[in-house]
């Protein structure tokens, strides 16, 4: 099977190269059959990488330890699901995953969007060029099918830290998001080459962009869940370079999702949109590069990584070619429309974009600061979480304001009187919310501002939906029917609102961590520690062995205001075996109000325990927010024939 897989990868490299050259040649020479042949290479590439992936899966599931990768990352005691997750646990496997997903997406895009006769040759060539790069890496540099001279009896095993549901889903989701951005990017390139610079490429790839954004979002969410539950330090985000690398394309993709709406409605920001999608794709490549090369995680890893320099070159190539192409097309990209007023929906979107790009720029600078400072001053200087927080907290708050005000603004020019009337209800609700929050004892300024704004945005959204439904009800529909038809007629707008509600909940959860409480305590048996309304009594603990784990567990009885609440058992375990690995298993009690999060930092020989008790307010709402965001994306994903027709007629009316 290994030989079949390796052969399939080599053939995929050849076919990808063919698929890059042929469509270009065909389009250039106006020879339809060459283009056609090139497009069939896209399908062949998908088939070949499907075969390679199957062969790789077969090696994983049959525990073929003659395969160097399988021997390096898997072992006999690994269960089915984690054996499966070995696919993307290491470099060669995750590159194969990337290439296979790209191949499948390319085939799907060519199949679904083949009707765009002018664009498709160049889009296909762009996608296959990328595929050629990845299959080249898989063939010559980092092969998932490399054999060992002698197969060991057992593999080295998967790090226990990676054996967690969050880590099972996080990498593939993240990659689906990264790869997904390739499709709108490819069509943007095609639009540039062919000078078809209307919004055709944007409309054609709208759902691709949305899907990519959705997977990028869930990549971040799974990563945060994993960090929160598994890493056992009480938080979910640490501004680690690798986290930042995943956040960057999300920020630019979010900006892109918003700004394309202005191009569709008003024919503005054409250049900007092309720039955004190029940036998003390059940042997705940068994210893959960063997670795989380790260029920032340590000072010396770059040189030791086999794929680092090649990846870096590829990114430079993509960047250079895309922006070079863009420069030659600037004249044709001149926007037809013009902004009419500072107070309008358009300028609201403009500021939304500024914010996302500002955040992305700040995160990028902070992430590569050591490299920049070394280049400038010869000293490596890095910045820490305070840098990121000081910039991104005000940015986040501004974003909330815009999220509330923007939907209330009219296109073109909003009348101040109308705007003020629209702001009345959300404004009053927000003030009431602030008073309630103060009464509830929240004094932390940032959290108070963020939560008040969350109330404001929610009220603004509800008001807008309610108004829409009332207008329809005026035409004789019941309220429920009116609401349903309103959403069905413009799923993108109302799906977007639901996504906003999800984001609001995520913000609320993040704001909650700003007024959390943390307390360390050393307890002997029978002693208690009190944090806020909780009292934890240490009942005893011990160490026992289960399989390959040495489990150290403390039993705590938890009282709330003197009333018995629950029993919690935080653990600190050591996985023995080939690679000794400590594993903190935190105990978490979740309520809508807050999480009680207990870490067993250590247990002494005398049986005393060292505990860290953390109270994380509103954490549950982050995960609920992730669910709401999913619902909103699904609504926005709904076909919107009616809405498209509506937009077109409005455009015509505007043009007249």
């Amino acid at each position: 099977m290994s030989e079949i897989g390796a052969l399939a990868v080599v053939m995929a490299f050849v076919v990808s190269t063919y698929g890059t050259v042929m469509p270009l040649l065909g389009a250039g020479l106006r020879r339809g059959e060459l283009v056609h042949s090139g497009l069939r290479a896209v399908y062949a590439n998908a088939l070949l990488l499907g075969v390679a992936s199957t062969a790789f899966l077969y090696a994983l599931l049959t525990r073929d330890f003659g395969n160097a990768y399988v021997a390096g990352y898997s072992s006999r005691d690994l269960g089915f699901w984690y054996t499966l997750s070995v696919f993307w646990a290491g470099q060669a496997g995750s590159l194969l995953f990337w290439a296979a997903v790209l191949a499948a997406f390319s085939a799907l895009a060519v199949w679904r969007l083949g009707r765009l006769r002018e664009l498709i040759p160049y889009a296909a060539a762009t996608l296959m060029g990328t595929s050629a790069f990845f299959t080249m890496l898989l063939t010559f540099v980092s092969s998932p099918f490399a054999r060992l001279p002698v197969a060991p009896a057992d593999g080295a095993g998967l790090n226990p830290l990676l054996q967690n549901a969050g880590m099972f889903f996080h990498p593939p989701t993240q990659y689906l998001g990264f790869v997904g951005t390739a499709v709108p990017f490819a069509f943007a390139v095609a639009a540039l080459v062919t000078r078809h610079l209307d919004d055709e490429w944007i409309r054609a790839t709208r759902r691709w962009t949305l899907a990519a954004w959705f997977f990028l979002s869930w990549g971040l969410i799974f990563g945060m869940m994993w960090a929160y539950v598994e890493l056992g330090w009480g938080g979910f985000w640490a501004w680690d370079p690798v986290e930042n690398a995943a956040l960057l394309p999300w920020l630019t993709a979010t900006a892109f999702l918003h700004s394309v709406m202005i191009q569709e409605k008003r024919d503005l920001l054409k250049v900007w949109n092309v720039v955004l999608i190029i940036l998003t794709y390059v940042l997705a490549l940068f994210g893959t590069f960063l997670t795989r090369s380790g260029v920032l995680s340590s000072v010396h890893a770059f040189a030791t990584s086999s794929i680092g320099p090649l990846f870096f070159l590829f990114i430079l190539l993509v960047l250079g070619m895309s922006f070079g192409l863009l420069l030659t097309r600037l004249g044709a990209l001149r926007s037809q429309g013009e902004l009419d007023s500072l107070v309008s929906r358009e300028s609201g979107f403009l500021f939304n974009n500024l914010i996302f790009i500002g955040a992305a720029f700040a995160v990028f600078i902070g992430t590569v600061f050591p490299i920049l400072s070394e280049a400038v001053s010869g000293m490596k200087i890095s910045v820490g979480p305070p840098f990121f927080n000081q910039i991104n907290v005000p940015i986040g708050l501004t974003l909330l304001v815009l999220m509330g005000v923007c939907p209330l603004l009219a296109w073109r020019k909003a009348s101040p009187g109308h705007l003020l009337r629209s702001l009345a209800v959300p404004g009053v609700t927000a003030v009431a919310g602030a008073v309630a929050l103060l009464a509830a004892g929240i004094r932390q300024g940032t959290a108070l501002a963020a939560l008040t704004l969350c109330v404001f945005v929610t009220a603004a959204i509800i008001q807008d939906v309610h108004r829409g439904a009332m207008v329809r009800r005026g035409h004789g529909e019941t309220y429920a029917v009116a609401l349903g038809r309103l959403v069905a007629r413009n799923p993108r707008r109302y799906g977007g609102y639901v996504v906003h509600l999800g984001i609001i909940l995520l913000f609320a959860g993040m704001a909650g961590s700003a007024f959390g409480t943390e307390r360390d305590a050393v307890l002997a048996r029978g002693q208690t520690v009190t944090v806020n309304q909780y009292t934890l009594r240490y009942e005893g603990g011990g160490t026992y062995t289960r399989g390959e784990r040495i489990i150290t567990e403390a039993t705590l009885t938890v009282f709330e205001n003197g009333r018995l609440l629950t029993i919690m058992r935080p653990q600190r375990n050591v996985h023995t075996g080939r690679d000794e690995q400590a594993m903190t298993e935190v105990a978490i009690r979740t309520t809508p109000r807050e999480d009680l999060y207990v870490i067993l930092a250590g247990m002494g020989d005398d049986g005393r325990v060292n505990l860290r008790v953390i109270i994380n307010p509103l954490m549950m709402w982050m995960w609920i927010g992730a669910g709401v965001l999913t619902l909103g994306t699904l609504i926005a994903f709904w076909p919107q024939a009616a809405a498209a027709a509506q937009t077109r007629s409005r455009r015509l009316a505007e043009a007249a």
Partner: protein
Amino acid sequence: MSRTNRKILAAVVVFVLAGAYLAYNGARSSMAYYLTVGELLDRAAGMRNADVRLSGLVSAGSIARDAIAGTLAFDVTDGTRRLPVRYQGVVPDAFKDGAEVVVEGRFDGQTFTAARLFAKCPSKFEPEDEGEDA
């Protein structure tokens, strides 16, 4: 340039300046030298009261932990030279002999007192396992 465009431009400029100010402040308050063991030892005199982020490997067999006091002492090495680190707090799971660590704190010429400790698994796992932080 129309009046509207001028207004929009002015608003954008205000926006960008505010962002730049925030960035400058944030950077000033959290900048730290990012050094390896050898670099820090060579510049020890100039680094007395500076915030330093030090990267290196946990020297095998040097870990001394007091689970109850929550204190941790170990040597960090760049392969040839080493220096002792003191730390108090929750220790990340990935911390062990040979692990790649980053410690943040100050060096008094003898001992590095760390306020924060980050650890990455040894070479086998690429840093895809993000945020293995303290």
